[in-house]
């Protein structure tokens, strides 16, 4: 398990809500790397200083797929704040990720 703790210094938001994110991938594929990179970019922009990302590679830890009911990879799970939310895909569609994380109201589909 690769644990990546990213804490930004420039905390501009007074809201000290903690965001706990978990990204499930299967191997170091281009899609996995793209998902992690896209996620970091989005978090830095919108959640700087108050998020943690845990990356789980199912090839190394297949037994962990059951807990969060993972089928598709990559899958991003927002554990905190509750409720739990899941976003599948390489997170290249930033708008959909923001809607999925509830950082932006769903105006689209």
């Amino acid at each position: 398990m690769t644990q990546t703790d990213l804490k930004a210094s420039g905390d501009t938001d007074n809201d000290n809500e903690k965001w706990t994110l978990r990204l499930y991938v299967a191997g170091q594929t281009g899609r996995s790397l793209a998902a992690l990179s896209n996620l970091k970019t989005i978090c830095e922009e919108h959640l700087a200083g108050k998020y943690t990302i845990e990356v789980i590679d199912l090839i190394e830890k297949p037994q962990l797929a059951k807990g969060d009911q993972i089928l598709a990879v990559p899958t991003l799970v927002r554990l905190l704040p509750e409720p739990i939310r899941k976003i599948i895909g390489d997170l290249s569609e930033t708008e959909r990720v923001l809607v999925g994380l509830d950082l932006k109201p769903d105006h689209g589909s």
Partner: protein
Amino acid sequence: MPDTENGPGPSLEPVAGPVKSPTGIEGFDEITGGGLPTGQVSLVCGGPGSGKTIFGVSFLVAGAVDYREPGVFVAFEETEEELSRNVASLGFNLDRLCDEGKLLVDYISIERSEFEAAGEFDLEGLFIRLAHSIDSVGAKRVVLDTIEALFGGLPNEALVRFEVRRLFRWLKDRGVTTVVTGEGGKDSISRYGLEEYVADCVILLDNRVTNQVATRRLQVLKYRGSVHETSEFPFIIGARGLSVLPITSLGLAHPASKDRVSSGIEGLDEMLGIKGYYKGSTVLVTGTSGSGKSIVAQHFVNSACARGERCLVLAFEESPEQIKRNMMSVGIDLDRWMEKGLLKIQARRPSLLGLETHLVNMHSFVELFKPEIVVVDPITTFITVGTVSEAAAMLARLMDFLKGLNITAMLTSLTSANQSIEATQMNISSLVDTWILLSNVDQDNERKRFIRVMKSRGMASSKSIREFDITNDGVLIQDTAVASERK
């Protein structure tokens, strides 16, 4: 009957077609010549409640219990607890098999509303999860129930389709024998046309209602490289799970007994070449209402019980009490045989159950009681349950089953007064070994009763028509023939 017991050494069986994995489903292995194709993917399609899940569970339980083949059940629609509870009534103890490491049930929840899609993905997570489950019990058998959940639960149908195809190939590469269940479709066999991807075996389950009675049917639509029966087979989901009722080569494979059993009526034995019926044969007694069919049948029962043989009477018009009272009036005391445990009378209203359920019930009564003689009185009532052809097919299967066990069967059938004597309903007379016709003629202000052996395979029987009386001592056949052969 695991074939692993034979040990090493050359097999006497010719190698032909695909290797098969028995499903343990009564009748199914028979119609497919051994079960599902080993190491391949089979698709089992059907509407809601058609028995898909039970098919899958039966296949895994048989593997785990009888063939030392552990299994993985991937449940997309029920949780482990729900599945376990739902099949417990069929005698399947999934929890115990799971504890023993012979089975693994993995509930995979896919709720469309839980997912937001943001970019490209694949279903590698499912593959990894399945591989982990397969490895953890050493599974040889896998069931995915139902595959449609993937389509309903995930965005991007084209991608899911591609991944499902990849999954089927992957399962084959791993060499596990797989059952994939799927919803039936309107224009295709399965809702998403998955039969295109499953080249090896496709099975259709169906639950149709005829005359307000639901009948389940199973059909093998496709079985690559294997001879299989293509007709629709009725099946039931009973106390022992799923059982398919095949119509096998009727009576042809059965040993023909040379032993004879008395009809219990002296004069009738005489007409049958002195010795009576053949053991293990099927005897049909037809006649109009009140012609004495039941009495002829109970004479047979009475004499068999007197020899210490066990008799099962399946009565569909009268209660056991009525039967006992009526028989007592003609000097046949059935009570003493019941007390001795030699006679069992099972009375049922035919319309209460579907034909297949009747047949399966008869199977279980016979297996429990182990009789030497079975009487079905009368068979005519089954027409009220199904169509004539369905009733005939059911009786043919019953006769076949009884013959296989060398049980002598006596069936009574009611002919209505305006029917020609040759017209036995359901045309089953051609299938029986011995056919006895009873008739009444009102003559000289008196009712005269006649008995005639219409046919009797393999014996020199009398073709004459004899008059008989029903006395306080039962049927009394007169010595002399009333007429010669009548055309």
